[in-house]
């Protein structure tokens, strides 16, 4: 991704998912409820940190051409470990996101975090970028899922994925005014688009279309 080599990851500006299209598939798929979004968001953040560490190690031993392929394998490996852990300790989360849990193997933000796109940067730099990216990603997921769940079901119900206990829940909009559109794929696209536009408006971002 040519544009990635030059842009700095940010929060409002160049948000990894909302501005740079990283990890879009996961974002669209898990934000139908805040519980899943937070669960997968935190998992992704952890995987991002692990990816940054492993990516740094790889950089020390691998020649430049091998960097991308090896990192791709590493991301698949990390995603599988993540899947096993979620299946073991948070099975409810696994069932609710279904096939999108193993799809973390091709989540571009985790690949980005390995530093495969920035072959020249130092490990410390890569790690800092990864942390920023992961945090911004989680924040974006929370924003989108909040809106989707609120407008789609009328309230928010946040549960602890590990134990199934409710952390908090509230109901705001009466059910006659909710649109189940928002919990479905089309709604995912719309809300993500609107949140992205919102972030861009606040961040005064200037990303051109065309992959430059």
């Amino acid at each position, binding site marked *: 991704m040519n544009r990635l080599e030059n842009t700095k990851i940010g929060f409002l500006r160049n948000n990894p998912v909302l501005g740079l299209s990283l990890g879009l598939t996961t974002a669209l798929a898990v934000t139908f409820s805040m519980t899943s979004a937070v669960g997968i968001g935190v998992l992704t953040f952890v995987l991002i940190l692990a990816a940054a560490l492993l990516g740094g190690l*790889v950089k020390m*031993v*691998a*020649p430049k*051409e*091998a960097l991308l*392929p*090896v990192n791709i*394998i*590493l991301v*698949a*490996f990390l995603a*599988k*470990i993540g899947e*096993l*852990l979620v*299946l*073991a*300790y948070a*099975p*409810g989360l696994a*069932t609710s996101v279904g096939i999108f849990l193993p799809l973390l193997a091709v989540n571009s933000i985790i690949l980005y975090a390995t530093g495969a796109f920035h072959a020249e940067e130092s490990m410390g730099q890569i790690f800092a970028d990864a942390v920023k990216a992961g945090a911004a990603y989680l924040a974006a997921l929370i924003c989108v899922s909040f809106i989707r769940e609120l407008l789609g079901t009328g309230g928010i119900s946040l549960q602890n994925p590990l134990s199934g206990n409710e952390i908090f829940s509230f109901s705001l909009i009466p059910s006659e005014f909710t649109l189940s559109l928002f919990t479905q794929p089309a709604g995912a696209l719309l809300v993500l688009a609107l949140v992205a536009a919102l972030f861009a408006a606040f961040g005064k971002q200037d990303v051109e279309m065309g992959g430059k």
Partner: protein
Amino acid sequence: MKNTKSLLVLLITVLLTGGILLFADSQLRPIIDAAGSSEDQAVLETLFAGETAFTPVEFTDETGLIKKVYEAGESGYAYIIENQGFSDVITFALGLDNEGNITGYEIINLNDTPGYGSQVGEDAFKETIVGKTSTDAFATISGSTVSSGAVVEGLNAAKAHYNETMGIVDDGTSVPETPAEPVEQPLTFGSKITLYREVSESKAGVITDTVEEGDLVTYTVEVAGYAKQEGYGDTPNVISITLNKATETIEKVEVLEANDTPNLGTKIEHPDFAAQFEGMSYADQAAEADAISAATVSSESVVNAILAAIEESK
């Protein structure tokens, strides 16, 4: 292209990660299996009272509807089934003992229309399933075909797997009993209809029969209901109205023929609807009745019939 070192690194990475994964799996697999079953544990225990040890069983299912199969100790088999209902996925559990009898049916997830699809979760429907055998056929519920059809499809998938496992041959000759009747739902009333109001000729009631018995006169009235007004059919609704001319009250109203939309307009046949007219005084110019919500036109047709009867009696 890649040089040797790159290939080597790639190979080592693959081997290393593969090895770690195999190790992780051996450690985590027992926890994963336990976690998977614990989700279902509560439901499974309801299906098989007294059993606590449920072991997941590997299975092949062409329909894709069976999500999990458990061996319930020595007592039999349990199935977790999922199928697309009307508005959402329906998940339910089915228990069969070792003799081919269905011992339990529990809904895990059901989000269909209250009063219609939701009937697959009610006792009336459950009673048509529990106690049957794995070679019996199941009937859908009229009025909620999609939801009950989904459940029946799932039941058939479970039966097929069970019969194959136990070596039972299902010759498919069993016929489902007559479709389970929808549970009688209480009426919900909507807007009010005033008795004395202008009624156009096409909507007015036509008296076809009069029977007098002292102060009581029974009129048989034909009145255009929703179907006839909208042009769907030529059959009017037929209402029998008994008036007490002395007290100027309505003695009784009976809907003889309701030819409007099944399950909507035909609700005027519900005893609660006619009951509201009994004893109603038609001397009161402000007399009014409650229309059944979502069946206003049909309800109005009954009131029009009553009005025609009253006018005839004067």
